[in-house]
């Protein structure tokens, strides 16, 4: 009886697994197959070549306002990817600088505020992206801020918007990391050894949250690189990768499929890279556990 039930349970588990795997893999395989058929009657990488090498000199990445003095003449795939990577990197930097010390302080000094923090950090889930975008535009595109009048101001607005959008992922990741280590005792140990707050955060807290911060960075990168709404409204010249993807999707036939596969591979390479870096001293977080 027990054996039969066990077999049925295992069979059911396998069926679920196969169904989920098929749900994820079949579209990718069909996309990949479709992306290889750009030339009638041939299987080849023409669509990929079109995406990666078409020179479009009129579409260049031009961010000429301080602090960026970059003028590159690249195929749009690269220029948009580069622009979005830059925005993603800035978002990672800003959100890390804001979220890690905040979450640390809440854990250490005001743990009662943790539910409040959790509520605020999930708000971006509840507020649709388009509402956030219009809210930001309405507030910051006119006096007294008028941030969209300058390139730098628009970049700041974009990075700010991304920082809010990724907050649920960043905060949660850091929160989990903080729960895994005894930050109170580590902080007190560092304090008793003469460390001030900056030294504690930079030399004790950040290194011990490395895996959590890397996970948050990966999620931030994946979201920022493909984000469309905010990027398209703030940079209507389709400068961001998300806008470029949408544009290609609207105007080409086989290239969108190729772009999907390229984006997918890019993200997976990043995942593997982060996992590898994280595994390097993965033990660091284990030994700090409560």
């Amino acid at each position: 009886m027990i054996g039969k039930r066990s077999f049925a349970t295992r069979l059911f588990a396998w069926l679920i697994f196969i169904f989920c795997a098929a749900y994820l893999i079949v579209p990718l395989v069909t996309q990949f197959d479709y992306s290889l058929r750009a030339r009638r009657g041939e299987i080849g990488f023409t669509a990929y070549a079109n995406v990666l090498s078409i020179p479009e000199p009129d579409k260049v990445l031009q961010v000429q306002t301080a602090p960026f003095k970059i003028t590159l003449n690249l195929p749009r795939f690269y220029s948009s990817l580069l622009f979005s990577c830059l925005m993603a990197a800035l978002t990672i930097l800003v959100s890390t600088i804001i979220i890690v010390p905040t979450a640390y302080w809440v854990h250490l000094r005001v743990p009662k505020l943790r539910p409040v923090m959790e509520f605020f950090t999930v708000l971006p889930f509840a507020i649709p992206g388009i509402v956030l975008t219009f809210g930001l535009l309405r507030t910051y595109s006119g006096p007294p801020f008028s941030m969209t009048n300058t390139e730098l101001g628009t970049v700041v607005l974009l990075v700010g918007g991304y920082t809010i959008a990724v907050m649920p992922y960043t905060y949660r990741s850091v929160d989990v990391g903080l729960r895994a280590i005894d930050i109170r005792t580590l902080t007190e140990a560092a304090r008793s050894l003469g460390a001030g707050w900056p030294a504690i955060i930079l030399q004790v807290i950040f290194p011990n949250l490395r895996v959590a911060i890397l996970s948050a960075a990966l999620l931030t990168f994946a979201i920022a690189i493909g984000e469309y709404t905010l990027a398209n409204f703030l940079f209507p010249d389709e400068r961001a990768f998300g806008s470029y993807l949408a544009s290609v999707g609207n105007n080409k036939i086989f290239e969108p499929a190729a772009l999907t596969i390229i984006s997918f591979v890019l993200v997976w390479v990043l995942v593997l890279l982060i996992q590898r870096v994280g595994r390097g001293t993965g033990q660091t977080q284990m030994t700090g556990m409560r």
Partner: protein
Amino acid sequence: MAYLELNHLRKVFGVTVAVESFSLDVERGEFVSFLGPSGCGKTTTLRMIAGFEQPTEGTICIDGEDVTNVPPNKRKLGMVFQSYALFPNMTVADNIAFGLRMAKLPGHLIRQRVEEMLALIQMPGYGNRYSHQLSGGQQQRVALARALAIQPRVLLLDEPLSALDAKIRDELRSEIRRIQQELHITTIYVTHDQEEALSLSDRIVVMNAGRIEQVGPPFEIYNRPRTEFVARFVGTLSTLHGTAGADGCVMIGGQPVRLAQPPADKLPGDAVTIALRPETIALDEVAPGHNRLTAQVEGVTFLGAIVRVQLSVNGATFVADALNNPNFSPPRAGETVTVSFSPEAARVVG
């Protein structure tokens, strides 16, 4: 003027008084233990000395300097925690060097000091290991070295052996005492383990409900407890209920017991409780002038070096400890034995 002065410390958390009227002078190089049950305020007092808790009232002076309002990172105290609190991202050497780097010492001095500390804790060659590659005892040794590396004015240890198994605990206990005496460092040690406190300390502060019950050397604390709480908390104590008899005697189960200090405020027939340490009761011989009680053996527990015998006199139970002697068979349950103890061994506690 004492090296460490705690003057009328008081700490209140909301409506709970954690520490009340705590005053203590500690001399330079002295090893003082705070001993008491959980929640008695010993760790809170230690944390006030460290600067992690601000006293509600009172002052803390170290070497003549009032440090009550000085932040913990400016007090130059070393602290060892129960959970080791080694920085997991750093090697053993980096952990030991952390405080020295914070003090901005030159690199060659830091390296030299780290080597000295590793030698002190008898772990040379462990500098490049990470904390997860060490046993609990080794981690605590490193934590001790890290706290000592900065040459602290006072070393604070918050139940440092509680997380270790018995054998390692004994080893490390001796190690802590050796290092403390070698460096002649003023040390405050928090523990709820009476054996630790008795074996390590120059003086013990027994605490209960936020207050000091008694301060004194281990011998005095154990042998001359001033309150019933101290008597019960430090060591094993048997209490026997009886009545006051004539001539200052106490009648236990109808048998007279003479005391060195008879109950002065009791009238004949009043209820009296006396306390006895198990090791003061002899099972096999009756010395002249000692009290004798005929008791029933309720049970015998073999503890290795000691044989603990549970006895009863007309329903009043107590225990007697005898050193294990291979040539002497302990009594069996149900037997009637005569036990004896000196008049000085029994104290009136109620």
